[in-house]
């Protein structure tokens, strides 16, 4: 079906709602955000992904107005935010620590922002009740924050930041304390809210699966820098560095040297006595240059008989991780290199094809992997 794909970042005329322009944030000597430039567009669901301490919360706090950039500018809807205090920004933030008001009930916590706006009483009550329903907290409305569990507190924090229906909502690890089922439901709930309200979301998460599910674009961060910004599929299929490849999902990384180029294929020599790996480079490599070849385990096939794939190695099964729907086989090649191969378990476990110490072939097509410089 011909549907307009949502991709304002490809449209040169689109106006970003958030602009970071060469923003640097230092705490003393420590550089928390390092010369960061990024545009985020209206109605985006933008995910920040990165290890702990890489500056995700700091970015959020600068957007909300609790930290000021040491250098550079932050623009919201084209307006420089530097002189605007937090309470005057059309932004709401859900705090990583929840920051619920301990002296107020769940109901009052959610109503807090609405009261400040002077919303009429009955309208406010309706809005709070709607938020309670959305986060399934109806039964806990009269409780104080310390009388509910961690997951419930997190939902109160979410409800409180959603209540004011802001144009821009910042969520700092909003679903971390929820169990898997509720987390997935809430993710869909969030996407639904966005559909309905047109809110722009910036979400920080540790959980790459979550980022993949909800995000229109994902930014992978490292040490105050953004390493790659792209759609979840691009990030997964064509990471621009071993850091991103390794951070998102499981990956086999093999280091080698660039060999001869034949057409659009490049051969990579990587170990004595092993055939070269054939790959399809996106960028050009000099002969002899160090290359990291990255391939996802699910793109590696594992067979008893010699396969027809252009890249194939003989090895033995070292370890099997059974994950229910999937199994990951760790196959050791004669030179010690471990290759992970993942297969779907469409058969019952008793009739599974491979077991420990089995001699097998691992193989892949010449377009399955990515060639990376670093």
């Amino acid at each position: 079906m011909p549907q307009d794909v949502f991709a304002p970042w490809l449209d040169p005329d689109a106006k970003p709602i958030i602009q970071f322009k060469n923003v640097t944030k230092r705490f003393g000597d420590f550089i928390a955000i390092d010369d960061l430039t990024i545009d985020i567009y209206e109605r985006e669901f933008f995910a920040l992904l990165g290890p702990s301490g890489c500056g995700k919360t700091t970015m959020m706090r600068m957007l909300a107005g609790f930290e000021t950039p040491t250098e550079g500018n932050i623009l919201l809807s084209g307006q420089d935010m530097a002189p605007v205090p937090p309470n005057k920004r059309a932004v709401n933030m859900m705090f990583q620590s929840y920051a619920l008001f301990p002296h107020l009930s769940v109901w009052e916590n959610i109503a807090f922002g609405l009261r400040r706006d002077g919303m009429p009483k009955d309208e406010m009550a309706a809005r709070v009740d709607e938020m309670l329903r959305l986060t399934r907290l109806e039964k806990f409305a009269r409780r104080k924050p310390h009388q509910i569990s961690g997951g419930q507190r997190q939902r109160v924090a979410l409800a409180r930041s959603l209540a004011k229906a802001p144009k821009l909502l910042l969520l700092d690890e909003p679903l971390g304390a929820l169990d898997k089922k509720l987390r997935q439901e809430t993710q869909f709930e969030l996407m639904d809210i966005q559909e309905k309200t047109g809110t722009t979301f910036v979400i920080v998460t540790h959980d790459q699966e979550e980022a993949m599910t909800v995000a229109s674009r994902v930014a992978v961060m490292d040490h105050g820098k953004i390493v790659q910004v792209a759609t979840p599929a691009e990030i997964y299929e064509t990471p621009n560095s071993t850091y991103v490849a390794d951070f998102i999902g499981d990956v086999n990384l093999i280091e080698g040297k660039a060999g001869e180029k034949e057409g659009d294929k490049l051969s990579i020599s990587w170990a004595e006595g092993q055939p070269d790996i054939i790959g399809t480079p996106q960028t050009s490599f000099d002969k002899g240059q160090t290359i990291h070849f990255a391939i996802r385990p699910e793109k590696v096939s594992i067979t008893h008989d010699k396969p027809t794939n252009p890249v194939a190695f003989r090895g033995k099964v070292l370890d099997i991780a059974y994950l229910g729907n999937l199994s990951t086989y760790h196959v050791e090649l004669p030179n010690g290199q471990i290759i992970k191969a993942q297969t779907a378990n469409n058969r019952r476990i008793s009739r599974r094809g491979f077991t420990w110490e089995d001699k097998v072939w691992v193989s892949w097509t010449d377009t399955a992997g990515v060639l990376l410089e670093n």
Partner: protein
Amino acid sequence: MRRFSWFNATSLTLGFAFLYLPMIILIIYSFNASKLVTVWAGFSTKWYGELLRNEAFLDAAWVTIKVAVISSSIATVLGTMAAIVMVRSGRFLGRTLFSGMIYAPLVMPEVITGLSLLLLFIGIGLDRGVLTIVLAHTTFSMCYVSVVVSSRLVSFDQSLEEAALDLGCSPLQAFHLVTLPIIAPAVISGWLLAFTLSLDDLVIASFTSGPSATTLPMKIWSSVRLGVSPEINALSTIMIGIVTIGVITASLVSKSNVARQQREERAAERLSAG
């Protein structure tokens, strides 16, 4: 549990006797029917009645209460503000000096505080009376308030205030709607502490008061020099009562808050585990 030992029991008894026997004797003798302090002549509450008819004592009591209420209220406002600045401001030049200066009056001998305030009041030509006692008491009890309040503020999660700002509060509203209600128990304890300190201060009040204002401790002190009367015992008993109630309330306010919080948190854990 330690085993019971005669040595421990004896030291405990002697220690408490040393502390409280004089007060107990005072309280008992305030109910003595005899005019002579040293002779027991049966139970009576007549000295309490006498006290109520003694204009001088009543005046002094009124001055004391007035001074205590006003000075502890001002001290609570100023002390809380000082605590917030000291806890929040982070590092700045001369921070240690500043915090030292807030706490110094705690250890300053009262005679010196009193004398220096007296010199100040004479210097600026302020007539000594209720006002000067209030100023003096505010000065020293403010330090106690700021110690009590800052110990609470240290554990106060500042993201709560940020959340309030984020939801549209001005900084003042954030303080008033979020910070103050949460630190209220500490502020109330601070007020009660300042109140009782003002109530039983003799030295600083003596230095800073004039002929127009006499506080109860001053009145007691001056009448005792003419000989102990049963009325004084009755008065002292009342003051012991007030101070005891004040101190117990202050500690209950902060304890019950902690206890309730812990109880409810345990309940929440059971709830989420179940």
